Every structure is written in C-alpha cells, then in structure tokens.
C-alpha cells in the first residue's frame, strides 16, 4: 500500500491517493495516516482509488472510523475511481450508501 496526499486550500479538501492492497496487515498504517491529516486540517477528504487493487473489511473499518471523525465537523469523504470489483465490496456491506462513491469506467 502507498498513501499520497495533497492539501487543497481552495476547496478545503485533502486529496488522497491510495495504491496497492489494503488489508489487515497495513490498515493500521492507513488509519494513522488519515487521522494525521484530519488533525492537520479539518477538511473534506477525496480519496482517489485509481491504483487501488484490493481493500478488505479491516480497510473498510478504517474508512468508517475516519468518516465518523470527519462528520463530527460536518466534513465529507468522497471516494473516486473505484474498480468495479472493489465497488462490489462497498455495495455488499452497504457502504455505498454511507460514502459518496464514483466508480471507474
């Protein structure tokens, strides 16, 4: 897994790119990473998953937990460029209703 982020002052948004695989092994690292961003700027989060190959339940848990914190200050989390077979995992778990999601063509 690799996490890259850019703070966009204009629209008060963290643009985060996730790549590789997120699973029970590295999800804690994702959690630490996201929490650090929220601490720095209480903004919205836009997660680009164009290079994300896999996410498991542990990774979803981290996203849920981040969303809870972001909602505390009325922020949003948007997920874009999800591969269809990963989007499927979001729909199975009902998380397609909780996050704003945009699927890869």
């Amino acid at each position, binding site marked *: 897994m690799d996490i890259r982020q850019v703070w966009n002052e204009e629209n008060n948004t963290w643009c985060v790119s996730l790549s590789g*695989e997120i*699973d*029970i*092994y590295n999800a804690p690292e994702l959690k630490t990473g996201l929490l650090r961003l929220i601490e720095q700027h209480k903004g919205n989060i836009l997660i680009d998953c164009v290079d994300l190959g*896999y996410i*498991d*339940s*542990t990774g*979803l*848990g981290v996203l849920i937990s981040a969303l809870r914190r972001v909602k505390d200050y009325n922020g949003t989390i948007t997920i874009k460029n999800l591969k269809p*077979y990963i989007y499927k*995992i979001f729909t*199975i*778990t009902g998380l397609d209703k909780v996050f704003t999601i945009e699927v890869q063509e």
Partner: protein
Amino acid sequence: MDEISINLPAKPEYMSVARLTTAGLANRLGFTIDDIEDLKVAVSEAGNYLINQFSDITVLNIHYRIESDDRIYVQIKVPGAAAVVNENKSKESELSLFIIESVADQVKKEIDRGVIRGFSILKTGGGNLKNE
C-alpha cells in the same frame, strides 16, 4: 480430484500470501477474473475473521479441494487444539461474515461451543449461483 493444503502463520502479514496462492489456483482452473476476485476475498476475510476471533491463534490451515475445473471447496480453519476466544474482537468481524456470505456460492461455518472455528467455502467458476 486434486487437493492443496497450506499452513501459514496466523499473522496479518501472511494474508497477502494466502490471497496470491488462492488467485493462482483459481486462475489455473480457468476461473473468470470476477470469480478469482470473489474467491480471494472470501479466503482473505475468513482468515481475518479467525485471526480476530482467537487471541492465541498461531496457525491457519487452508485446504483446497478441486472437484472439477469450475468447482472448488476451500476450508479455512484453526488446526489443532482449542484457542482462546478474543472477547474484544473488532467490529470488522461482522463485515467479514457479510462479505464471505455474499461472494461465495455456499458457506458452512464450523461452530464449536458457540464459536466459529472454521469456514468451508464453495466457489464455482460459473459465477455466483446463490445470492442469499
């Protein structure tokens, strides 16, 4: 009918190895990309669940039984003696069960004294037969 069995440390860092082995097998059988993905997800989440379930788990056993080119049974379990149940297991375990049930064609849970100790998962190459 071919069988493959793998024992690996029940540690988070080895779940990626379990996924690769699973994907390699499903690929060899000629499963579609979607079916390979489903099986990978099912095996990985079953591993997650068991690692989460037992606080003293050391080994995971994954047993693949290939019944035909489009029909594979995968059993994921904690081999040997009972393990200590983790009382603070994380909420993601619920997600794991949900996901496993959805991507597999059939799931049997091996329950012992009220605790899931293993999963037996059927996946067919012809897509997802069952859906609830």
